[in-house]
């Protein structure tokens, strides 16, 4: 009998320890600098999300440990960027406790000092010119104008934000200026996503002073990719965003993706924003309190409301996957994350430091 009870107890413990990641909605209000929900992306998080949920928490920890061993530097930097961001955001709250713990115990470091006012980001456009996909000055100038509209809440489509989200629309107050345009001839039809376009030795164009500029590469990426980015905390030599030639600025060749929002979306990643659905199921968050939980991207031009994870998706957010004309807002919480990386000690502080 004793053995039987013991067996049941062990089974019960194992069951509790490996609870599945259900579709519960995460609690958005977490302790101020609670990093417990911070996840470092792992292959397993994505691959087993729908196939074998019961084991994922336990198994993903094993994978996480392996990946941390493989690339400890990057993961540590990502963790530090996230912790700095959360400290900054917590410090902004009236009852903020930036040092973590209960009621701000002594010895906690002071919160980062936020950068107030307009943030100006010089943009260096590096074009690997394919004659079949020309990139004109008009494309470049319109892209800069679109970025300025989107990061200053002057996208005319924003008027269509549903009442539910109207009070959450942010003005990030970030201005982009064209610093330089570098052009290099290229007949390569598929540059891929391994950053070759950022390396002169591989036929690309080296980044220009990435600590003080946003480098934006334009080339034929291929493989169905419209653009991609790099989060803060990565290698400086590859820091920036990459946009497919047909999708830069106002460009008829880009069709429904030809209105410059691929760059807005990718610059959002460059400024530390995650996809609005958190690249996982309902529990996997984008680390933004005012964006509703979701479990997958939205495509096309969804009609409101689109319900997932028991709430209405913010499909019009720039960090979703909808058509260019159907995305037209950043939220206040996303704005806080973006501003955090320009605060003292932030990953992109150098851009606002004289």
């Amino acid at each position: 009998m004793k053995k039987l009870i013991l067996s049941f107890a062990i089974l019960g413990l194992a069951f509790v320890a490996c609870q599945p990641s259900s579709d519960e909605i995460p609690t958005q209000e977490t302790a101020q600098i609670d990093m417990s929900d911070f996840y470092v992306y792992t292959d397993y998080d994505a691959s087993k999300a729908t196939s074998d949920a019961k084991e994922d928490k336990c198994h993903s920890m094993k994978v996480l440990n392996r990946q941390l061993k493989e690339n400890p530097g990057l993961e540590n930097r990502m963790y530090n960027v996230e912790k700095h961001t959360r400290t900054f955001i917590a410090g902004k709250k009236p009852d903020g406790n930036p040092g973590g713990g209960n009621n701000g115990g002594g010895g906690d470091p002071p919160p980062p000092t936020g950068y107030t006012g307009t943030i100006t980001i010089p943009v260096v456009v590096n074009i690997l010119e394919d004659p079949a996909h020309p990139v004109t000055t008009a494309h470049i100038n319109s892209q800069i104008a679109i970025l300025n509209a989107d990061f200053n809440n002057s996208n005319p489509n924003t008027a269509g934000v549903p009442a539910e989200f109207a009070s959450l629309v942010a003005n990030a107050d970030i201005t982009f200026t064209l610093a330089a345009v570098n052009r290099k001839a290229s007949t390569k039809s598929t540059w891929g996503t391994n950053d070759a376009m950022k390396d002169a030795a591989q036929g690309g164009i080296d980044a220009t002073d990435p600590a003080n500029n946003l480098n934006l590469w334009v080339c034929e990426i291929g493989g169905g990719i419209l653009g991609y980015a790099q989060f803060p905390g990565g290698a400086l030599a590859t820091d920036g965003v990459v946009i497919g030639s047909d999708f830069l600025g106002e460009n008829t060749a880009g069709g429904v993706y030809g209105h410059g929002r691929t760059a807005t979306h990718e610059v959002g990643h460059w400024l530390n924003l995650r996809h609005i659905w958190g690249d996982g199921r309902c529990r996997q968050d984008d680390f933004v309190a005012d964006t509703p939980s979701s479990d997958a991207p939205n495509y096309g031009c969804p009609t409101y409301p689109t319900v997932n994870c028991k709430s209405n998706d913010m499909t019009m957010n720039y960090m979703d996957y909808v058509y260019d004309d159907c995305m037209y807002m950043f939220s206040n919480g996303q704005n806080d994350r973006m501003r955090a990386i320009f605060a003292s000690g932030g990953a992109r502080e150098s851009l606002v430091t004289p």
Partner: protein
Amino acid sequence: MKTFNIVLILLLAFNTSCQSQEKKNTIMLNYKAQTRGFLYQIEFKNDSIEINNNNLVKSAILTKSQLLKIDSLLNDINFKKIEDNISTNELAVDRAIKGVFELNYNQNSYFFEFSHNNLPKEIENLMKLLESFTN
């Protein structure tokens, strides 16, 4: 009566055997890779196939010999050695496209999540073969 019973039993056994064989040979494959501005989807069941490549849809009814080729190719794939290869690190910044692969074959079910632009060689060959049947 005895003869009737024997014939009935034989008929039932034959029918069950055929059903089992049919079930064994039924192949069902769904594959979907999607990201912003890109969709690639294969739907294959029994002898019918439809491939949607960025909204260019092609379909076909496969011949016996085509089905045999698919069966032979699937038979040669060691699915135990195939692994998911998508990295959420890459998905998170749009560097990769997730391709969800579901297959029912020989009464086994397989589920994988691949990086669409970096498919395992065997899966890539399978898709090329399927594509060739819709051209």
